[in-house]
């Protein structure tokens, strides 16, 4: 009985010793976890024009068109049946309006050209706001070209000048006639 007990104890002790040795005998290895994506080639590109710029150009074009329409109406609404002095005032106003109209037309063309440059850069229509902005300004420009007839403005200008000249002639003749009458009576 005692012998069996001693044998069991020795066995357990040997097992413990074996485990201790096992610790030294067996190394460690990691089957290391990694969770990573493969690096894909990434293309970054910035927009060559921002929506704010296009919006600003659209607003400018709208302002120009509104101002042009106003100037045009003012130019055509001048009635030439006035006195010489009033006609001269009107003529100077019309001259100024015509000059202003030409400047505004130039400005509108500049805005249109700037937008058409952006549109040419955006050939593949990747930036929709550029396309929309260009279309909006193009329609405004077409509207101006259809509405504002510069030949009419020139005609009004010429008519006024003619009227003024006529009135000046008439005035001159009246003065000359008056002088002749005075000389005859003397």
């Amino acid at each position, binding site marked *: 009985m*005692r012998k069996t007990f001693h044998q069991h104890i020795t066995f357990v002790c040997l097992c413990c*010793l074996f485990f201790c040795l096992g610790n030294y005998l067996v190394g460690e290895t990691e089957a290391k976890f990694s969770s990573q994506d493969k690096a894909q080639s990434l293309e970054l590109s910035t927009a060559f024009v921002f929506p704010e710029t296009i919006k600003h150009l659209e607003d400018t074009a709208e302002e120009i068109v509104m101002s042009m329409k106003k100037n045009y109406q003012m130019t055509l609404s001048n009635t030439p049946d006035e006195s010489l002095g009033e006609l001269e005032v009107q003529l100077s106003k019309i001259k100024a309006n015509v000059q202003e109209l030409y400047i505004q037309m130039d400005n509108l063309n500049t805005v249109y050209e700037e937008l058409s440059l952006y549109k040419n850069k955006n050939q593949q229509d990747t930036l929709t706001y550029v396309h929309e902005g260009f279309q909006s300004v193009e329609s405004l420009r077409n509207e101006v070209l259809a509405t504002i007839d510069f030949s009419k403005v020139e005609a009004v200008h010429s008519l006024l000048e003619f009227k003024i000249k006529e009135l000046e002639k008439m005035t001159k003749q009246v003065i000359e006639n008056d002088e002749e009458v005075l000389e005859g009576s003397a």
Partner: protein
Amino acid sequence: MTKKFWKAVRRIGSGMFIVILCLASFVVLSSRISGGAPTVLGYQVKAVLSGSMEPTFQTGSIIGIETKDKHTSYQIGDVITFNMDGKVITHRITDVKKQNGQAVYKTKGDNNDGEDRWTVSPQNIIGLYKGFTIPYVGFLLNYSSSKLGSALLLFVPGLLLFISAFISINGAKKELEAGKVG
């Protein structure tokens, strides 16, 4: 007859156990003296601490690694054990590349979703996994290397030896007393 047979089996088993124990002691001592990792017949045994190679081998299992020299070449699909950043890692080769005229290896854990960031040079490779694995033993060894495990492995045999000695002394005392009375 049967009794004799079992007695013989027990004796052979005990003898083998003691021989294995002595061999293990010898291997451990020699590796401690030489400073290298314990190697038995060209194999190293490693406990697997994490699960990136599942299901090839499980976390907590022990695996056998056949040690190789730095001139050995490996194929795609081989599972190699190598040193990387101060750790011993076991992963599968996914690609073989040439770098400065020598082969370097891209690796990946079977359970991982991407290749490892590093490339493994032949100098860092310890050996090749040959498919020998015993599950769960690594957990036991890992526990026995912990503070509590180590303490138990020292305390339990000590206690048992103490009890054994106490019983022996007590028995001898009783025998002596019985002899005196007789």
